[in-house]
């Protein structure tokens, strides 16, 4: 439990992805089975306990200590689990600290009444960090800034030499915690576990961003298919051996959120496609899809108001046959027949776009025809002869995104970064002009960005922030932003959505700083009505 607690503690305070990878990889290397397997399951979200509910913890602690002292402590710390971990008045004579696997075994097997007694005993035996980790583990949702994918990558990297993360992902849904077979294979002590498990996720093939200036010169248009890059989320729909599932491109199972789509899967096979909200065959905005995402379950109302569907890009398996080793041209033929056979309004085909020259395709991208293509994110290029290969290989697939939207906005607040950037003000809130009270022209924040600039530019902005600070609020500084004195950013973004959380009423998708406009007086930066017009255009299409 001690090593696991230290791992969670470090992860929760570490921003750097590489440092997180190192921490998890080393933990997995140094910790014996089955503890490390349970830890990996906790990090990937594959571990949850029903019997353990946190409600009784507070009661238990108040039985042991003065409630007033507890309340003052809670008020100071602000987080219940952390407060309990720190103040827990341990009774003497506790047992030794439990191992992670003992805790997991007991929580999985015990009744609620038994669990309460066990937990009190463990809290007595553990140190504060161990107690904190125990409470996080019990209540689920570790919130230490790890994605499941990053945890799987760390597992892949514990092998010497490291195996590609796609191999671990391909196996994942055939494995069960505490993954002793996986570790045996990664450590070279055992066979690769079988991935032959109906309904499993296949690691997705991803595209490189095309570099227009360099790549097109060496590419023959005849070798490539083009299709729209739809603005939803990339998914994999699996119907295999009676198991039907919907996965995100990172292998998270989202079947429960989209029963309408899962029910539409009739023929045995695996479709790679884009999940969208579609009404009468017409794609709705990403904002509509968000109404369906991040919900554990859906009600009839949401199903009717935001009907989801898949627009199919590829076919990874048909019947019992793995089609990933076939060429894209061959898979595409099979996909067309497969979608036709499904004959469902919830599954349609992403059409390929015929073209003869790159110039012709460029024109199509710059000026998409009316209808769905207008809200596509850009175009995809796929070699006709490419096999379906996990990861992001260079060459077979490219994405060619639409040019971003640009506005000029004024720096208003700057916040210190984390990790490498902790000595820099590197997170910027910027605003545009609007009419304030009594007609005065004031800035209203429209977004926040923390990348897009070079290291050299970061130094310059950091110096500017320090030299032009008006007020400090903890790690945040407000920066001088007046019509004749301030810093203008050219901000690039992919789209706009209405937002009730932002005072300005708009929220940007994927904003980043594209240029520093030292030359531009802040008074000449953009105004809110420009963003409102862009938003109306996007919604009207």
């Amino acid at each position, binding site marked *: 439990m001690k090593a696991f607690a*230290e791992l969670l503690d*470090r992860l*929760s*305070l*570490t*921003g750097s992805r590489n*440092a997180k990878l*190192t*921490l998890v990889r*080393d933990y997995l290397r140094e910790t014996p089975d089955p503890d490390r397997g349970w830890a990996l399951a906790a990090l990937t979200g594959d571990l949850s306990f029903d019997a353990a509910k946190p409600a009784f913890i507070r009661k238990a602690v108040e039985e042991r*200590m*003065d409630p*007033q*002292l*507890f309340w*003052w*402590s809670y008020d*100071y*710390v*602000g*987080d219940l689990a*952390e*407060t309990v971990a*720190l*103040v827990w*008045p341990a009774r003497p004579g506790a047992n030794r600290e439990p191992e992670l696997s003992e805790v997991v075994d007991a929580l999985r097997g015990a009744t609620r009444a038994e669990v309460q007694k066990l937990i009190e005993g463990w809290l007595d035996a553990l*140190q*504060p960090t161990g107690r904190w980790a125990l409470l996080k583990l019990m209540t689920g949702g570790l919130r230490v800034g790890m994605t499941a994918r990053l945890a799987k990558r760390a597992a892949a990297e514990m092998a010497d030499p490291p195996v590609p993360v796609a191999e671990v992902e391909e196996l994942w849904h055939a494995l069960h915690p505490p993954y002793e077979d996986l570790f045996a294979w990664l450590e070279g002590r055992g066979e690769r576990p079988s991935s032959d498990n109906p309904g499993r996720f296949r690691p997705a093939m991803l595209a490189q961003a095309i570099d227009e200036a360099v790549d097109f010169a060496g590419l023959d248009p005849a070798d490539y298919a083009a299709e729209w890059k739809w603005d939803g989320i990339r998914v994999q729909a699996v119907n295999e051996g009676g198991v039907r599932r919907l996965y995100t491109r990172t292998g998270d199972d989202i079947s429960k959120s989209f029963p309408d789509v899962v029910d539409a899967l009739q023929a045995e096979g695996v479709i790679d496609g884009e999940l969208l909200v579609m009404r009468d065959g017409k794609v709705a905005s990403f904002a509509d899809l968000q109404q369906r995402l991040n919900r554990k379950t859906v009600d009839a109302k949401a199903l009717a108001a935001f009907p989801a569907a898949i627009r199919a890009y590829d076919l990874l398996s048909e019947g019992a046959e793995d089609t990933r080793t076939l060429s894209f041209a061959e898979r595409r033929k099979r996909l067309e027949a497969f979608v036709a056979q499904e004959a469902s309004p919830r599954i349609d085909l992403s059409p390929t776009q015929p073209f003869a020259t790159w110039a012709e395709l460029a024109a199509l991208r710059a000026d998409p025809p009316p209808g769905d293509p207008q809200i596509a994110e850009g175009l995809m290029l796929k070699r006709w002869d490419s096999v379906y290969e996990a990861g992001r290989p260079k060459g077979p697939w490219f994405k060619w995104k639409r040019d971003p939207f640009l506005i000029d906005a004024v720096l208003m607040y700057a916040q*210190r970064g*984390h*990790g*490498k950037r*902790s*000595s820099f003000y590197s997170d910027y809130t910027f605003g545009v002009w609007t009419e304030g009270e009594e007609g005065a022209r004031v800035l209203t924040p429209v977004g926040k960005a923390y990348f897009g600039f070079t290291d050299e530019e970061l130094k310059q902005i950091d110096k500017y922030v320090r030299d032009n600070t008006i007020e400090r609020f*903890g*790690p945040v500084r407000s920066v001088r932003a007046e019509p004749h004195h301030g810093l203008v950013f050219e901000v690039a973004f992919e789209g706009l959505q209405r937002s009730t959380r932002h005072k300005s009423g708009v929220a940007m998708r994927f904003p980043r700083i594209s240029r520093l406009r030292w030359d531009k007086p802040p008074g000449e930066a953009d105004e809110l009505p420009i963003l409102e017009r862009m938003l109306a255009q996007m919604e009207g299409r």
Partner: protein
Amino acid sequence: MIRPQDLLCPRPEGLYCALGDFYIDPVRPVARAVITHGHADHARAGHGAVLATPETLDIMGERYGAEFAGAREAAAYGQPVNRDAVEVTLVPAGHVLGSAQAVVRWKGLTMVVSGDYKRRRDPTCPPFEPVPCDVFISEATFGLPVFRHPDDKEEIARLLRSVAQFPERSHLVGAYALGKAQRIIRLLREGGWDRPIYVHGALERLNALYERHGIDLGPLEPATTGKKADFAGQIIIAPPSATQDRWSRRFPDPVTAFASGWMQVRARARQRGVELPLVISDHADWDELTATVDELRPGELWITHGREEALARWAEMHGVPARALALVGYEEEDDG
């Protein structure tokens, strides 16, 4: 019958002893002062006369220059000194080098002013000595049950594990210049780290002072020279304010650590951008504060500064009448 408040009473300048005409740790210049230890909020320059341990006088001289007070009187630990009719004895407080409790006696009444103190072993100063008393006047910097400082050896071991795990990065440890920095260095030596430790310029004079007083800090190097890559795999110690400042950019991708009792609370670490919090404090934690009251069983507990209400409540619940003095001017956040 003498009442304790006739011997010591709080005034805006600090605790005042009218019968001996002196203040203890006054926050403003006064004619006669008794100084418990060298931290700047307790030891200020400009008093008429100062009574303190030789080590504390040395520290004040190093910080403020030799003329920091009109007259300086050294009292070794355990050596009683008379201030008019009042007897003052300085006894170890275990806080930093030279730190003392002030034991004030008058006609059979004993009052002990703890100053800042801790009960754990510290390789840089002698341990706290409990003195039976009628009134114990305690600090309460960490006077909430959430503050339970772990074993400092284990904290240092975590730091050394991190250094081994991230050999391409440097480890930048924020530690207060007086006391904490030298304790960390000693603990690192005890933990087996015998390579040079790099130190910020602001620590150099106090490090030298500790060495003069017989605390062996091992090989130290200035952190100001050398190429960035030279600091990979090294430990650097700096005042907390420098670890997030532009000064820190000279080091390769530093892991920012901070040695302080405040690091017990995760949100504090997060606010300061600390990646590796080290819960190492020179103050008594909740268990030490309450155990000390329990051990001394004074007739009354007075609390000078910190989180008085919780400690006062605990004392009352355990049959010791308690009173919060709410003295101002003793820093809370920048000490610990």
